[in-house]
């Protein structure tokens, strides 16, 4: 007793596929006792109509021709479940995303839709009722990345009483936000709003903070992840270190100051900044004299707390988690190779905006005095150039960095505050200031702080007499512009953080063309990923500003809390099953199973395979590997697939 429901999806389907013809064709298919077309099957009246038909005609199998199963399979499983049917006796036939939306010829599209429905009918006729299983949930969350998004997510989850482990690969949390001087559009002091949150993380009884740590291996699935975290050796015993900084003062080995974007210099053993959390030194072996030349040990001698341990080794801890939030943030586009006319990094006074931010910051290497990197002089004329490595097809980076327009305005304002007789010039393509209070802010930069906005790109920068000549176009005036600048600040595009791609692979989540992590659905699943139990927060998913990152982190936390407040999770019943009467016990299935879900069981003559349903993830590898074909994946059996192929080609 099979029913076929053809969704018109308004005109989304009906404009290209004749749903009436599909219904007519369906009525003559084997086993079909009911077929109808409904304007919106997913709507309340639509679902009502399906339930009524099931109950009146006594349907036992349903084909839903409409949108992608990735969209509404769950919706319709629930609907037919409400009608008293087994929810798995449903087949979704995709005649929208993979038919009506990609074709224009009505006859062709309709013929294809009929083929697809015939395929669905053949498949569901061979479907057996299935019962969803359940698995227990580990009530602990992992947050990867300790920037503002990771901090927010960790705090929100921990506040709900759920234990959280926050993993950060550098030696302190805070991320990129900790490097900012002020934030737009309120000009809040970045440290003043962030550092209390960082301290809260450290003190929270439900948060375990792991710095210098990275996720190395991920096993398991939603509710039951088992994750290896590598804590890299920092040569400092975290519990002993008091953050007194004597080691950093006495250390003779110079090292680049990553936190200050190399605006200053640091030491091999250091604490990146004075508000670091945890306030613990760590040693970078690649710069340390002891590890390079074999002689030094100054830090060990001067440390009053006995916290230095050169023998320290990496530790790998394995922990169980029910959910994961990825908040790895962003990196900056390296402009040097792609913009050769800007000097390829040879002019020290052409810097990126993050480095400029450090020069503006009172906690920066210059104590908040703006100094040109070349000669330490205070600049007068400062040129900002937008969209370097963003909105630029010529370097293969079409997307908007979404924050450049705003932080350029902010930096122009701060520059004026620092140096009242300075003049900022901003080369822009468009001023994109769509947030709350944003447009007003960019206008203030012009009206109250005298920033001069020039619409156009800069073609060339070259040095002349201790200054940098910036040659550009004013596309509004149709003129060439030449500005003698003391300092040039580039608003570079955002990239995923270093290593984000590898992490995405470990977590089995996909990335987009630029390497940002892909959300489950651009509209309806903005924090979910295609891997159950893994959520996204902040700029790892795409360029975004602080308010958006914090909001997304809160949303991800809410999803985690919702997930982990369940005691058990429903598991898919589409797992493999062995016909033990016919199993020869070759265990090829066990060899290919990625989850160790196949075990040997004693039978009358020798051993046969048995699937541990709670471990099986339903990939079907065993189904293909089995020589006599006696292990089969429920819901995707050989019979079903062959029937689909035969019927669709009929």
């Amino acid at each position, binding site marked *: 007793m099979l029913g076929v429901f053809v969704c018109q999806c308004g005109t989304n389907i009906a404009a290209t596929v004749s749903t009436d013809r599909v219904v007519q064709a369906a009525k003559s298919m084997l086993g079909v006792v009911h077929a109808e077309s409904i304007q919106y099957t997913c709507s309340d009246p639509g679902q009502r109509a399906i339930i009524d038909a099931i109950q009146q005609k006594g349907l036992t199998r349903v084909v839903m021709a409409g949108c992608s199963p990735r969209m509404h399979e769950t919706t319709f499983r629930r609907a037919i479940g409400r009608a008293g049917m087994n929810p798995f006796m449903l087949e979704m036939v995709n005649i929208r995303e*993979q038919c009506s939306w990609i074709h224009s010829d009505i006859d062709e599209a309709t013929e294809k839709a009929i083929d697809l429905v015939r395929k669905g009918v053949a498949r569901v006729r061979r479907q057996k009722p299935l019962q969803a299983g359940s698995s227990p949930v580990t009530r602990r969350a992992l947050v990867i990345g300790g920037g503002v998004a990771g901090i927010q997510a960790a705090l929100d989850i921990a506040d709900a009483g759920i234990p959280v482990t926050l993993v950060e690969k550098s030696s302190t949390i805070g991320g990129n936000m900790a490097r900012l001087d002020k934030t737009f559009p309120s000009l809040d002091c970045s440290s003043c709003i962030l550092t209390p949150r960082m301290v809260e993380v450290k003190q929270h009884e439900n948060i375990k903070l792991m710095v210098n740590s990275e996720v190395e291996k991920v096993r398991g699935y939603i509710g039951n992840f088992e994750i290896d975290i590598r804590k890299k050796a920092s040569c400092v015993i975290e519990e002993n270190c008091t953050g007194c900084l004597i080691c950093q003062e006495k250390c003779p080995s110079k090292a680049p100051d990553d936190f200050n974007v190399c605006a200053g210099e640091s030491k091999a053993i250091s604490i990146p900044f004075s508000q670091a959390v945890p306030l613990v030194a760590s040693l970078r072996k690649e710069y340390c004299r002891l590890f390079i030349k074999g002689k030094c040990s100054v830090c060990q001698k001067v440390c009053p707390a006995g916290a230095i341990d050169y023998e320290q080794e990496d530790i790998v801890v394995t922990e169980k988690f029910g959910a994961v939030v990825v908040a790895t943030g962003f990196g900056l586009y390296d402009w040097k190779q792609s913009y050769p006319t800007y000097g390829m990094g040879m002019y020290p006074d052409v810097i990126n905006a993050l480095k400029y931010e450090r020069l503006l910051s009172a906690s920066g290497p210059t104590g908040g005095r703006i100094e040109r990197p070349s000669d330490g002089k205070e600049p007068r004329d400062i040129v900002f150039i937008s969209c370097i490595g963003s909105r630029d097809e010529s370097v293969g980076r079409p997307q908007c960095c979404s924050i450049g327009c705003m932080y350029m305005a902010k930096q122009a304002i701060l520059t004026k505050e620092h140096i009242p007789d300075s003049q900022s010039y901003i080369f822009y393509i468009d001023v994109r200031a769509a947030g709350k209070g944003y447009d007003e802010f960019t206008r203030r930069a012009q009206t109250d702080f005298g920033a001069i906005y020039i619409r156009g790109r800069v073609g060339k920068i070259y040095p002349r007499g201790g200054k940098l000549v910036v040659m550009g176009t004013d596309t509004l005036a149709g003129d060439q512009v030449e500005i003698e600048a003391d300092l040039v600040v580039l608003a570079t595009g955002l990239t995923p953080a270093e290593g984000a791609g590898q992490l995405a692979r470990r977590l089995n989540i996909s*990335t987009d063309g630029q390497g940002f992590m892909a959300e489950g659905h651009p509209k309806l699943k903005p924090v979910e990923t295609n891997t159950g139990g893994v959520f996204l927060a902040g700029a790892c998913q795409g360029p975004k500003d602080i308010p958006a990152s914090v909001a997304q982190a809160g949303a991800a936390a809410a999803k985690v809390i919702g997930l982990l407040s369940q005691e058990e999770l429903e598991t898919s019943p589409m797992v493999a099953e062995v016909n033990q009467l016919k199993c020869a016990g070759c265990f090829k299935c066990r060899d290919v199973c990625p989850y160790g879900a196949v075990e040997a069981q004693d039978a009358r003559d020798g051993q046969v395979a048995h699937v541990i349903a709670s471990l099986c993830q339903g990939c079907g*590898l065993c*189904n293909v590997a089995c020589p006599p074909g006696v292990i089969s*994946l429920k819901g995707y059996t050989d019979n079903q*697939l062959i029937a689909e*192929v035969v019927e669709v080609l009929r």
Partner: protein
Amino acid sequence: MPKTEVKIIGFLCNWCSYAGADMAGTARMKQPASLRVVRLPCTGRVNPLLVLKAFREGADGVLVSGCHPGDCHYNEGNYYARRRMEVLERMLPALGIDPARFHYTWVSASEGAKWADVVNEFTRRVKQVI
């Protein structure tokens, strides 16, 4: 005389290529109406015999597409698929099937445009040899 419309069976994994095909649809990327997609959890579920079955039932072409190697939702399913499909492709001439009618590829969930290209290009290729 070349046929104007051909029938191609596509075996797509649910997590990457099926989602990529959905994405191409959501972006309204026009494609020839040649393809009929069979959704599977993983390309590792594609038995080479199933591909041959499709040819025997009259498919003009068969397309297998999954997650990029290294990105499999089930960690290693597409590695098995890659080996199986590679061997199958080489066996096709011996079975009297033009290997140009068979194609296996990798399209991720975010590669809608690539998916549309794959369908367009493979349809064109199948039409040439049929």
